[in-house]
């Protein structure tokens, strides 16, 4: 068996450092998701309005965020804002800002889709049964919307966790950056470490994202 350089993992606190890096990535994703969900729900509701102004503004926002590569957004917020406005924001804060802006756009579109996908006769059946508009929303529309939404928003979480691998470019020391540091530090003693360490990083991403994906799939099946 070729030397994968796995021994480097057990040198010093390398494994712990990698896990710490992973936690940075997961923490940024979780904070961003926690902010994106309420903001996205608001955005999604606004997007269903028929008002042409809100329609255009939200559409432009959504398209802009979707078209721009996340890395460019990160550079704009982290580097450009410092020069132009003199803001001194940390890499982690810049990441949370960009990921929340992105998550809000994606979440808003999901909420919009879930809301308009509830057929009109669901509202009418409620009305015909003498339910008040509030009761119709509470017992019929919102439960169906949430069921459609939860699996989709869980998928958004995994996409966010994967995309955090970009934030090493603005100097945030997350799992991939820690891996690079470990590999660099052991270049002479274990030249093969690159393979082993990156393999471990891969497995770590998998261990985080796979259960989340499974949960989404399970909920999707259960609530179909």
């Amino acid at each position, binding site marked *: 068996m070729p030397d994968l350089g796995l021994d480097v993992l057990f040198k010093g606190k390398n494994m712990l450092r990698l896990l710490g890096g992973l936690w940075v990535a997961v923490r940024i994703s979780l904070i961003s998701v926690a902010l994106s969900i309420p903001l996205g729900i608001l955005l999604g509701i606004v997007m269903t309005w028929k008002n042409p102004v809100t329609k255009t503004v939200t559409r432009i926002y959504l398209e802009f965020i979707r078209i721009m590569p996340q890395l460019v957004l990160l550079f704009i917020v982290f580097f450009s804002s410092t020069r132009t406005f003199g803001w001194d924001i940390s890499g982690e804060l810049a990441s949370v800002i960009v990921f929340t802006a992105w998550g809000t756009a994606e979440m808003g579109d999901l909420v919009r889709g879930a809301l308009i996908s509830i*057929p009109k006769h669901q509202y009418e059946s409620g009305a015909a049964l003498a339910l008040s508009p509030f009761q119709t929303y509470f017992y019929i529309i919102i439960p169906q919307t949430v069921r459609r939404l939860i699996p989709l928003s869980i998928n958004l979480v995994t996409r966010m966790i994967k995309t955090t691998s970009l934030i090493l470019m603005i100097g945030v020391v997350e799992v991939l950056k820690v891996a690079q540091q470990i590999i660099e530090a052991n270049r002479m003693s274990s030249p093969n470490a690159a393979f082993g360490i990156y393999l471990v990083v891969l497995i770590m991403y998998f261990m985080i994202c796979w259960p989340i994906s499974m949960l989404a799939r399970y909920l999707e099946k259960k609530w179909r």
Partner: protein
Amino acid sequence: MAEVLLKVKDLVKQFDGGTVLDGISFDVRRGEVIVVVGSSGCGKSTLLRCINALEPIQGGSVELGGEPVVYGSKNLARMRQQIGMVFQSYDLFPHMNVIDNILLAPLKVQKRNKSEARAEAMELLKRVGLEDKAESYPRQLSGGQKQRVAIVRALCMHPVLLLFDEVTAALDPEMVREVLDVMLDLAGQGRTMIIVTHEMQFARAIADRVLFIDNGKIVEDSDPDTFFESPKSDRAKQFLNIFNFERSK
């Protein structure tokens, strides 16, 4: 003759400038079964939707038991409890099982006792042959079964008037019968019903009176034998001809 239960007077309904219902007037007596027929888009479904105020109307009035039914009014919830409606599209709530679908309105709107309402729901399900489906979800039912559940859901509110809006139009032919049988059973119990349908033989069998609507107006209002055997208007003759086929060889 039984007393008048529903009074529709000079009903006018307009959509985007077009007039769908143009001065509709008719009375329904307690226990009567009215079948409304007419070509697609003549306003039959709209008429039913106006009777329980799912649509605002532009003129005229609807009265049930002497009380007005008005779109957006305060007493609307109370009036709608007395009007059961079954739609063409499957309108069961997909996230609730059969029994929860049926019990939602009796428990939340009428605040009835749960075990009493549940017992009644089970009795009604038994009557339509679905007592073993109480815990099933709508997606596990056939179209005909869903419509029977929708009928039970409407019945469980103890309505004095039932509206059926082309309830078999979206069903496979072999499922139509099971739904129509339930409706025949209800007619036999002396329930007051207004039925919009394209099943002409069924209409003839169940109706006390047939209303033929054309261009937003009631063109004929007669007993079924008269309507199907000797319609007075040319429009009705034309309409009924659609259902007759000559041998081609």
